[in-house]
């Protein structure tokens, strides 16, 4: 229950950097068909790693293991070299949908991230207001989740995940249930927002284009293991390398 002490907490408030995340030969699930089998993965501090895979490839499970919500049946999950034994505010998570508390307003949901760690009310309000504005929800602070569109709800989730300045953000198909146009908008917002944070990002999706747009690297997951890892060439739009990579990933899926 207690958050694992962030590895060697610095005495001076050094500029925060992203967490280095790793899966060390992780298996998850039992029997002859585990969801993940012997998966090794490394995510560098501050990088955006996108995990693509078809449904059932174990990509959500992988993300939950990184979050500390699921304990691996074998192997270790590491954050900055220390074994992860449970969830922590250092690794915030954005879920696909319906993860907002329906009885809390937009502001209440964003403040929740700070309330659970005992931040003072005034600081909470100021930080929440700032993030609500950054995700474009100024004016909707007092609305309830059910009064928001799917895209707006995901904006709230994004603000809630980032308001606590986590060192890693784990995103589980956050735009998976949005229509194409809203999804494109949200992707642009995410790129903008992530540029300002030092956090390491692991982003799970089944959409190859989304993966290439957002990722510094793309990991292809399938059959319970990592099939391939690719660096994404920048700028990726329109380049022949990127087109070739896209075709290759689609084949690997």
């Amino acid at each position: 229950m207690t958050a694992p002490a962030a590895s060697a907490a610095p005495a001076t408030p050094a500029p925060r950097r992203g967490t280095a995340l790793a899966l060390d030969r992780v298996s998850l699930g039992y029997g002859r068909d585990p969801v993940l089998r012997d998966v090794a993965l490394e995510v560098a501090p501050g990088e955006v790693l996108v995990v693509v895979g078809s449904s059932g490839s174990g990509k959500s499970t992988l993300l939950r293991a990184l979050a500390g919500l699921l304990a691996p049946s074998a192997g270790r999950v590491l954050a900055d070299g220390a074994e992860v034994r449970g969830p922590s505010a250092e690794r915030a998570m954005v879920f696909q949908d319906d993860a907002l508390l329906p009885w809390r307003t937009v502001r209440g949901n964003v403040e929740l991230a700070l309330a659970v760690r005992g931040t003072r009310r005034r600081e909470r309000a100021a930080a929440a207001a700032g993030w609500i504005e950054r995700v474009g929800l100024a004016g909707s602070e007092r609305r309830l989740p059910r009064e928001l569109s799917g895209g707006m709800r995901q904006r709230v989730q994004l603000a809630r995940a980032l308001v606590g300045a986590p060192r890693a953000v784990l995103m589980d198909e956050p735009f998976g249930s949005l229509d194409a146009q809203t999804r494109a908008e949200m992707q642009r917002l995410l790129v903008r927002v992530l540029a300002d944070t030092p956090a390491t990002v692991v982003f799970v999706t089944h959409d190859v284009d989304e993966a290439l747009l957002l990722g510094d690297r793309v990991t292809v997951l399938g059959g319970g293991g990592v099939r391939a890892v690719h660096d994404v060439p920048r700028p990726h739009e329109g380049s022949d390398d990127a087109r070739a990579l896209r075709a290759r990933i689609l084949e690997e899926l």
Partner: protein
Amino acid sequence: MTGATGTPAIAIPQEAPQASAPDAAVPAGPVVGHVRTGRRGRRGDPASWAIRAASLLAAAGLWQLLTAADARIGLRFDRLPSPAEVVTELARQLGTGLYWLDLAQSVIRILTGFALAAVLGVGTGVLVARSRRAGDVLLPPLEVVRPIPAIAMVPIAILLFPADEQGIVFITFAAAFFPIMVSTRHAVRALPTLWEDAVRTLGGGRRRVLWNVVLPGALPGVLGGLSVGMGVAWICVISAEMISGELGVGYRTWRAYTVVDYPGVIVGMATIGVLGWVTSGAVELVGRRLTRWLPRAEGSGS
């Protein structure tokens, strides 16, 4: 003889909360009418209000007619007091201190028993739903006691508690506890795990999850249990008062019967009905206030 006449008397409080349920929902009527466009507000329609009032008056008129004529048509209306006699008796009683003393005594009993049941019922429900070990320890004895109607525990209550008063409150508590506990347990178990995951990945521990997810999330289900609990609490407090006690609406009603004061019996019955209606209305109202976040159709339909 006692049993035969006792049965309808005891059945009255049972009917009261049930009959009050549609009435209690009335305040939500106009709201529902506005939200569901396309369907004319059934409840706000003046014509249907007039019909309802007429129906009520007709029933009272029929009662007056049957009693005034001393009708004996299978049922014996010759001994039943007429509405006029009841109203006279009610007006007389409203002016006496005793009526209000009885009323206050019953209200204190039910509120004490119900409050205890609410706190312990919700607490136990959450505990057994969240902790397997607590469930192993607590559920077997509770499941053994649960099927016993609280009113059947009256002899035990008399044996256990030195004062009648405590026994009556205990019976009321026992009646309300189980519906509250059971509905809390189910509501907690049915919570989406995603909410808990969300709070945990924000750094929340067990206590944060309890306060921020479990209790508010289970609230709609808990309110259902509180509503049912309030209904059965009334049945039991009245019945217990009829068996023992020296004050209270139930005691007064039964006493009126034993001294052949039939208008007094009906005044007692009506009082019990009104009290039941007011208390379950209060539970409903508080519940609606606390669960504004629910989608409207569900929120107003509970």
